[in-house]
């Protein structure tokens, strides 16, 4: 399960596929001020990237790759910790 929800922190790990987009959107809708931890995410599917772009949560860590970086460039970084 690449999606772990722990209080105000949502952790995406490994390879997130298109199926993870909808649950992620649901969680983000339920917790508008959530922080999304991407430190252990290997690859985010386009659909997941889209959800992040829509919900604009604070991000911890950025996945590798030019495309995810370009997608998520506008999102705020979470404070360390």
């Amino acid at each position: 399960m690449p999606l772990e929800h722990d209080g105000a922190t949502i952790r995406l790990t490994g390879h997130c596929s298109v199926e993870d987009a909808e649950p992620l959107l649901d969680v983000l809708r339920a917790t508008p001020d959530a922080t999304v931890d991407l430190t252990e995410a290997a690859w985010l599917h386009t659909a997941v990237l889209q959800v992040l772009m829509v919900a604009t949560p604070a991000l911890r860590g950025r996945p590798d790759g030019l495309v995810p970086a370009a997608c998520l460039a506008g999102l705020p970084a979470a404070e360390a910790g």
Partner: protein
Amino acid sequence: MTNALLAQFIPEARELLERAGSGLLALEKAHSAEALDEIFRAVHTLKGTSGLFDIAPLTNLVHAAEDLLVEVRAGQLALEPEIVDGLLDSLDLVGHWIDALETREVLPDDAADAMSGRVVTLRGWLQVGGPAAAASPVASEAAPDWIGALPESVRQAAYAAGGPLIAWSYEPDETCFFRGDDPAHLVEQAPGLLGVRVLPRETVPAPEFCDPVLSWLRFEALCAAPAEALSEHLRYVSDQVQLSPITKDALVILAGPEDTAEVFGDFGVRARALVATEARAELKAAAAALLGIIGPATRQAAALRWIAALAPTADADALQRLVAAIDGAAPARPVSAAMTAPPTAAAPASTGTDAPLRQRAEVILAAQAEMLDVPVEAALDAGRRESVRTVALRCLPHLAPARAQALNAALAQPGDAAALRAVLREGGDTVSAAVVVPAPKAVQKPAVSTAPTVPLAAGAPSEASENGAGSGAAPARMLRVDQAKVDTLMNFAAELTVAKNGLAYLAGRVEQVSGSRQLGREIKEQYAVIDRIAQSLQVGVMAIRMMPVSQVFQRFPRLVRDTMRKLGKEAELVIQGEDTEADKNVLESLADPLIHMVRNALDHGIETPAERLAAGKPAQGTLRLSARQENDNVIIEVADDGKGIDPDVVRDKAVRVGLITPDHAAQMTADEIVNLVFAPGFSTKEQVSDLSGRGVGMDVVRNAVRKAGGDVWLASRLGQGSCVTVQLPLTMAVTRIVTVEARGQQYGVAMDAVAETVKVPLGQIHRIKQRETFVLRDAVIPLVRLADSLGLAPATGAPPDEEAVMVARVGRERIGIVVDGFRERMEVIVRPLDGLLAGLVGFSGTALLGDGRVLLVLNLPDLI
């Protein structure tokens, strides 16, 4: 056909092939993006649907064609005539396979071999044409305008990277996730990816309304990779991708407001000297130093950053251009700025006197003025003014020099919004009126909606006309019906006509047998009603079968093009009256003769360009195909402006091959002589060519046309061209005939062929050699005895005092046919002889009479 899906695929495939073929021809004449898109869509759809069936060779071939088209569309491959030939040939092959699919539901056995050969050819062009074309300046012209939006650092890195550069945008379609696509992954894995920009196609949806399974992104990426590698990588989404190879100079886009500081002039002088002396390190240092003291947002700062980044590697020309962009683009000299600025996406257009662009720029400026009119809070006003300034600056290169100067002066005083507004507005009134009034269609939609000076009334009709055109252009609601069904309906209508005729007999018999004239009359009244309905039915069914001749004509652009290329001649095809309608069967019977005639005209008629010029004609010949309706006939003419037919040559040849005697030849007019080309076995061209002139020439044409109940003749003027005229009945369904009697048998003769009927006293029939003739109004008419021609028994008893002669037209000659008597006229459906009777000479078909008897209908040309 058992496979319903395949049955549906076949007509669709044919339509797509047709569309792609005509698109290719259009494209060869004039490059048009729409035509290319149309072809591409057709081929792409064909590839997609063909994948449903087990016809891999077809899919592969179409795929290769599609790949080629992708390159063409991306501007990397010029559409050479050879490539068009190759694509057309491939489409033809696919057409043959479709035919095979229709009859046998499998591809021909040799399909795989034929396919691999073609695919190698097509792919060959792809490899040869790709890099060669990419190096050409034409290919790199269309740098997309979003390149400037990529981060400057990315562009500078790309500039330094060198090699082929491709800028491409990718808009995955909304439902791509359902197909398992991951667009981001595809983009990430693109070969040589240097930078990417991701943006929403429209606005980012709100979280509440966002559907996580629909894609709404657009990717704009820059790759340093050969075009082939990239199109291979993107082959499955090629319809959603726009590839444009760009030169590295296209990357240098300097955006931002002008800085008018004098320091740039000093820098320019120094920098030029540094470039000239190849002191690159110092140039870089100078640029960096200047960057430290000016604001980073200006255009000059951008140019300085480029200089700093490129100083060590770039060639001197590029650096000089950048330097010029810094000091030469000072606001006081806006025109020279436009001239010397490095080529950006928008700038190339500005160097020409591009009136439409200028008008559009004015419209945009007027919109800016409108925007400034709207009152806002002071906090927002500054930002708004800044954006107006930016827009105005971008418009500057496209404006008339005087106006640009005035605007520039106004822009130099940032505080004075009112003055700026006035200047912005200045050109707007005249220009936007000029844009909108003369040709509302030509105005771009955004221009209409943003131009404030356009009166509402002017906008509304243009909108309405667009809508009107939209609904008018919508495809007519069509019903695709198997022709067999219509033919069945036609047969029923015909049988109804025959059965109806039976009522007339019945009325006669009622009067005879029961002696009740009252009943007979009532039956006749009823007959009249049914007659009317039957006729309406027949007209209706026949209307279904009517098709415009364009159905036949549409294959000719291709034929003319191919033939011309083969012969090395030039000809323009002019088609007239393609809306003229005729029965489907008539048109089909016409198709082959027409091809023959067109080939003849091109092969024998139109001369080579050199010959034409020598004869004082334009190098390009004209072939005119026209159709029109005359009474119950369709007249089709094939006219060329070639060398015409020399009657002397025809006469000599005709005498030599024994068609006519020298005496006979001496009496014939030039017109009659040229029509000898229709005689069997006559071909004027000595050399047998691949195209026509196989010795079966025009007599085949005449036979085919006559079989369809028409006629053909030729008019020619030496040195000026020839015109072949084909006359065909509008419909072959119902034929008016007259019945004649010979030895007690009744035969039908088509009324069209009958000129008149006369009684000729025996004494007036003269025998000239073997042939009987008589004189009708000073013309000698040959006589044929029907009974003899049909091989009927000789007449018993004494010959009558006078003979009943039917004077008939066969071709353009008149001939008298001696019969025993004339009976009645009627409308019948002539059915062709088939089965064992098909080879029977002398009859064109059979018809059913009202009383149930079968009538043989004579084919007069056979009897002579």
